[in-house]
């Protein structure tokens, strides 16, 4: 019997269990520090430099969230009223909301049925004279087909904005996630692979002009030299010193945490390889352009599988139960009669299983066993 064990959470509350004292000490040190500098200070600058060097980018600019990073990039690239930006039909709300926030119109492209990332052919077919940018997004554990998007953007003379918010650790053809676009982003919200106990994100770019614009836009349009002179209408999208100091301490352990996540994801996929014809399709694992953020299967009988998992002490999560054009907020931007069959299918079947560095081998085994047991019994019904 396995039901007596406590539920394995999907969103674990103990992500930073090993760093409790570090967080308390960091808060106290910043709070009582002689500098009394709390926002965009030395710690933030150091974190930006460390990430810049790690990614090999020309610049990394810290800001208040991954969502805000997208907004800053869109505005810095000059996306505005009357413009169209091609985005995936399947994914997180900021893909559409950030475009709308910038005054432009999101144009939804269908996705690849296996990668679950936007299909370059579908994106190309939607390019019009009003299109100014393509914004592919990496999804769950798979990078979008960035070489194709890079080629397409260059050929069509469009900006390429890479929503790599969740893809820290991904590398494709030797190029890290976030560095394929004119600019990319990372989010550090707690569940991300480089998550932290608060909200924050970064913009990554090799374009120094774009970087200067982003730096200005994140702090009320100031140039960092002339205080209270506002060159542009900017945002308050800054980074807190407490979080920067904490992330600097956590950076050393990132590769080990990524490796552990990859190990678990690889194990799941090995266990699930035979389930494809039993209604559970595992994500592609291993190979180029993969990163171990969220382990999402496509489950033909999702509701019963979720119930079965729950009955056996395994929490699961449906990230995107509906496509972006089917969200009430974005329906007004979806052309009437249009459909996105692959996105709709992904919305119907996606189910994510627990994946985090401190998941034990036994827990991973139990989760895999439970999924396999479901496919056995469900097939027999």
């Amino acid at each position, binding site marked *: 019997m396995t039901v007596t064990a406590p539920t394995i959470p999907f969103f674990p509350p103990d992500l930073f269990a090993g760093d409790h004292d570090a967080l308390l000490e960091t*808060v106290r040190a910043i709070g009582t520090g002689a500098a*009394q500098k709390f926002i965009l200070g030395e710690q933030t600058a150091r974190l930006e430099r460390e990430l810049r060097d790690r990614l090999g980018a020309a610049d990394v600019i810290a800001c208040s969230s991954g969502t805000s990073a997208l907004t800053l990039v869109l505005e810095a690239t000059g996306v505005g009223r009357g413009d169209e930006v091609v985005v995936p039909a399947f994914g997180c*709300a900021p893909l559409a909301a950030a475009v709308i926030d910038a005054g432009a119109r999101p144009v939804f492209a269908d996705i690849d049925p296996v990668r679950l990332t936007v299909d370059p052919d579908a994106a190309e077919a939607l390019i019009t004279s009003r299109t100014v940018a393509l914004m592919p997004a990496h999804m769950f554990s798979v990078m979008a087909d960035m070489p194709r998007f890079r080629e397409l953007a260059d050929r069509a003379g469009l900006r390429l904005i890479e929503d790599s918010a969740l893809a820290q650790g991904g590398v494709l053809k030797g190029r890290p996630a976030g560095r394929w676009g004119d600019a990319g982003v990372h989010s550090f919200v707690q569940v991300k692979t480089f998550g932290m106990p608060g909200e924050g994100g970064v913009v990554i770019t090799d374009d120094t002009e774009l970087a200067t614009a982003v730096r200005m836009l994140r702090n009320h349009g100031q140039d960092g030299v002339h205080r209270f002179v506002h060159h542009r209408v900017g945002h308050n999208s800054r980074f807190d010193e407490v979080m920067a100091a904490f992330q600097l301490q956590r950076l050393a352990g990132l590769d080990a945490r990524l490796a552990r996540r990859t190990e678990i994801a690889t194990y799941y996929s090995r266990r699930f390889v035979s389930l494809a014809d039993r209604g559970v399709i595992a994500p592609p694992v291993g190979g180029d352009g993969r990163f171990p953020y969220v382990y999402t299967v496509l489950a033909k009988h999702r509701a019963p599988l979720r119930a079965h998992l729950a009955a056996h002490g395994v929490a699961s999560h449906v990230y995107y139960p509906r496509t972006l054009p089917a969200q009430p907020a974005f329906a007004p931007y979806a052309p009437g009669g249009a459909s996105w069959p692959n996105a709709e299918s992904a919305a119907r079947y996606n189910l994510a299983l627990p994946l985090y560095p401190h998941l034990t081998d036994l827990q991973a085994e139990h989760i895999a066993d439970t999924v396999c047991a479901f496919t056995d019994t469900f097939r027999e019904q």
Partner: protein
Amino acid sequence: MRKISSASPGFSGTTDFEAASIPFFTQAATFDESWADIRGHLVDVLRRGKFSHGAKVAELECELARWTGARHVVGVNSGTDALIILLRAAGLCLGDEVIVPAYTFIATASSVVLAGGVPVFADIEAHGYGIDPRSVATVATDRTRMVMPAHLFDRMADMRGVCEVARRRGLTIVEDSAEAIGMRLDGRHAGLLGAGGVLSFFPAKTLGAIGDAGAVLTDDDRVAETARMLRHHGRGGHTVDNFPGIANPTVLPGRNSKMDDVQAAVLLAKLSRLETDIARRAELAARYDARLAQVPGVRAVPGGVPPRPGVDRACYVHLIEVDERDALAAHLAARGIGTEIYYPTPLHLQPCFAHLGHRPGDFPRAEAACAAAIALPLYPDLPDTHVDRVCDEIERFYAGR
């Protein structure tokens, strides 16, 4: 004199305050005194394990609602975000005009642009820093939908005058009350006199975090519900302290403006001593005024203008107007005394609003304030002796002219 913790920087047991520099702002001693309380709240956050938009943020919202008397408090990432979210939640539509003062922090006007509106500037009152209701009446057009006074430094704008002109012109009032915690009119807290207001918890504020954070205040259920969605990607339903709520339907195009629970933890600890902190600020402000009101070269001190009837002051910034402002700032800086210029350039003359076509002279009172205003150190950690030293140096500067 207020007890200074020996752990605070610059005060390591010495009584020789002449030697110590006086920063424009510090909360190191307050933070240190409050550490046990802050630590307790942080441990709660660590146990709960949701680090933004979590249970501690909800607790702070409740406590702030009680403290201010607001029906709803919606915690967000900054005061600026709070303004954008408030404007949208209060019904601002693309292209609507919002009247704002020409003398204030940039966010009062940039938030209007970021919410999709167009800022229209008005001048400030004759003997104060709030928007002038008569100027509001002058600049309003048939596209004007809202008026947003800002309550700066130590008191609220002329809200009776603003309400009157808003009623006549059919304008919605939203308040930039980012600086105004503790300010009240006839017992009603700033931010609750119209559709809603905001609070900023920027570290130097009267209630300051140690990072960016803010809140929307409103008594209007509909404004509150919309604001709650807008801060969390436009998602409906229950999302605070509820991770799976990220899969709720996206009802409106929103943004990510979730507050960090670490900041909520610090704020809850500081909120428990806010009345004392505000009283201390008032004491320090009175001490400055008593000395500086008579100094030749000092044109105006905050206490020189009595508050309007029914107004509770809360001294966030101690702003005086002086002759030779920049030379005085340099004189004080050379003696280790930090000051701040609020604000060197009025909003209608900022580069980002050049397209609105304003020229010097359009709002003379705002321009005059920008030329003469200087803010002095004011915070609960500041000892009386430091106020005296700042006053000595100001006297010395003008005596030596």
